[in-house]
């Protein structure tokens, strides 16, 4: 049994001819003059405009190819538009023992009693407050807070050692820049860009490489050091 559709009478705004239309009609064509016209619901004030929620976005760079894209702030995963890599965007916290590799675009926090026991952990930002047996890779920054230890080395964008904190690293560290306000001990410390040792900072390493070095009064640095060679401009 079909439902009865109630009809209403509408007048053409062009020729004034009346005709019957469904009461929910939005637009029609006049059967007299052929003019197209909209109902008052479609064109009038009675139609409420739905305001779309603005989706907050953030920039994200792929850890593999470095391509930058925008993703929703709340997104938990995405796919790189350039290389197709699956990007895990969430954050993770290690408060106890964790085995196995980690790769995420968000933040990884290894708590004061946390111990990362996998071979390699990669996160855009790593906050180290505990220990790591595996290699740590942080394209944005590695922030060290508390008494910490890395057995296998670390690499990334910026190394920050907070005042009063200690990082003992059993292998090479390789960062773009560094700010040391605590204590760093490692075999090789390589900084492709500037290295800053604050008034309470200390760096002791077998080999230290940098492009630019500032040691403020009170800061300490010791080791065999080498500045990056001056950029050679190719002859035209």
């Amino acid at each position, binding site marked *: 049994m079909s439902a009865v559709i109630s009809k209403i009478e509408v007048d053409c705004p062009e020729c004034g001819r009346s005709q019957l239309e469904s009461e929910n009609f939005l637009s029609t064509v006049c059967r007299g003059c052929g003019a197209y016209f909209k109902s008052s619901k479609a064109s009038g004030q009675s139609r409420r405009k739905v305001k779309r929620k603005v989706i907050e976005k953030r920039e994200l760079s792929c850890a593999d190819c470095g391509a930058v894209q925008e993703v929703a702030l709340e997104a938990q995963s995405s796919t790189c538009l350039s290389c197709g890599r699956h990007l895990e965007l969430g954050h993770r916290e290690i408060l106890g023992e964790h085995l196995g590799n980690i790769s995420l675009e968000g933040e990884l926090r290894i708590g004061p009693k946390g111990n990362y026991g996998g071979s390699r952990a990669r996160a855009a930002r790593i906050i180290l407050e505990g220990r790591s047996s595996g290699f740590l890779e942080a394209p944005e920054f590695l922030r060290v807070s508390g008494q910490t230890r890395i057995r296998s080395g670390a690499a990334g964008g910026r190394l920050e050692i907070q005042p009063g904190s200690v990082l003992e690293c059993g292998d090479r560290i390789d960062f773009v820049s560094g700010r040391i306000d605590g204590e760093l001990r490692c075999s090789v410390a390589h900084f492709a860009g500037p290295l800053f040792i604050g008034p309470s900072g200390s760096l002791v390493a077998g080999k230290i490489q940098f*492009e630019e*070095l*500032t*040691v403020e*009064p009170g800061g*300490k*640095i*010791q080791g*065999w050091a*080498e500045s990056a060679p001056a950029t050679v401009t190719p002859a035209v």
Partner: protein
Amino acid sequence: MNSVTGAEVNSGDAEIAGLGPETFSIWGDIRFAKDAFLQAKVQGNVQSAKKLVVAPEAEVSGRVQAGEICVQGKIEGGVEAAGQAWIKAGALVHKLCVAHALRIEPGADFRGELRVGFGRG
């Protein structure tokens, strides 16, 4: 080439500068009593209790010791500063750098033992 030879030159003047287009050369150690601007080639060591500026044209084969040092030239034997040391872009310091505080600019060539903030001992 203008040259001065001898085991030691005690300079009360604040400046040892190049004479004309040729570089002033010194064989032996030199010691400055005041703030100094070194613009010469030195085959030996340089000492100053005050501030010493090593000019871009200057070259020192030995070690340079001073209260404060600003290096723009070349020092092959290392630097020791009781206070601040600056190694400017284009400068060369090899072998050693001991200082209380240090700034090495991008483009400077440093290679050697680095000891800052641990005293001169």
